[in-house]
């Protein structure tokens, strides 16, 4: 095969006829319910929200909420609500990657939003973990400081893993946004 030059590339690009979906197939994929990635995020969101609401509705009886200090109950309740709110905002943000009138501003805005969501997510997860820990720690009798420290370290490791996950998720958008931003300085 002869080497391809830029003109060949242009010609190949223009003559690439690879789209062959008919109207019915297109109509089927425009249904957001069928979107594979958003569906998995939505399932996770719904599952978390349902489980947390069940937890809020039952923890008082199941885990003797009435016997715990009022501050532990209020902290737990607020942390769960904060976690649910962050989940919902995160889902709505991920659903809308197109944010501006051109690629440079859109990616910049989207990256800023994701960064804010990342911060909310880390803080709300930490608060939720800490609230659960404090709630149950009030019942510790033996080795209470050792138990609390071990569980607190586990919580910090989980937050670190969450942070790494978010960094990996936003890396490509950050790189592209910075490439577009740096483009004009470079010219």
């Amino acid at each position, binding site marked *: 095969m002869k080497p391809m030059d830029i003109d060949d590339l242009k010609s190949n690009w223009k003559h*690439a006829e690879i789209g062959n979906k008919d109207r019915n197939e297109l109509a089927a994929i425009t249904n957001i319910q069928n979107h594979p990635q958003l569906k998995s*995020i939505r399932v996770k969101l719904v599952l978390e929200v349902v489980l947390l609401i069940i937890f809020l509705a039952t923890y008082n009886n199941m885990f003797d909420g009435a016997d715990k200090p009022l501050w532990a109950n209020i902290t737990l309740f607020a942390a769960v609500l904060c976690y649910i709110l962050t989940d919902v905002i995160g889902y709505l943000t991920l659903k809308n990657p197109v944010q501006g009138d051109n690629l440079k501003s859109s990616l910049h805005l989207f990256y800023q939003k994701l960064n804010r969501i990342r911060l909310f997510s880390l803080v709300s997860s930490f608060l939720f973990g800490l609230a659960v820990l404090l709630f149950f720690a009030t019942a510790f009798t033996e080795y209470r400081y050792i138990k609390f420290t071990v569980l607190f370290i586990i919580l910090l490791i989980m937050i670190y893993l969450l942070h790494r996950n978010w960094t990996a998720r936003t890396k490509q958008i950050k*790189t592209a946004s910075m490439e577009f931003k740096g483009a004009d300085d470079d010219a």
Partner: protein
Amino acid sequence: MIEEHQNIIYKICHIYRDTKEDQEDLFQDIVLQLLKAYPGFRNESKVSSWMYRIALNTAIAAFRKNKVPLDFKATIPEALHPIDSEPVSENQDKMFRALRTLSPTEKAVIALYLEDLSYGEIAEITGISENYVGVKINRIKTKLRKILN
């Protein structure tokens, strides 16, 4: 409109995703974003330019199931074959594999260039200056020549 211009979406999917499954997922993602953005579409720009903007934006920013970072290799991996069911010529296959080695921003600029958009139109879609569009295209051409030959 999408049926008529679906080739644009497919081409973007082919240069931004390696596997058939990822390409189909991205196709769906782009179609959804186009439908969402359509009420805001003003006839000031060409439909194809508007579609390119939304499609490229989605391809770069869309959330991906597997969080494996893209690895931009200097050479084209032989093992990667883009699709199974849709026939593409050997030359087109070679072209898509070469384009996939570029960075996401380079892919966006070269896709618009290959579509014969003017530097002004490319600048408007990407948000970078016309001057830099020229610089960037020359750099990408040099890179592609090395890969293709």
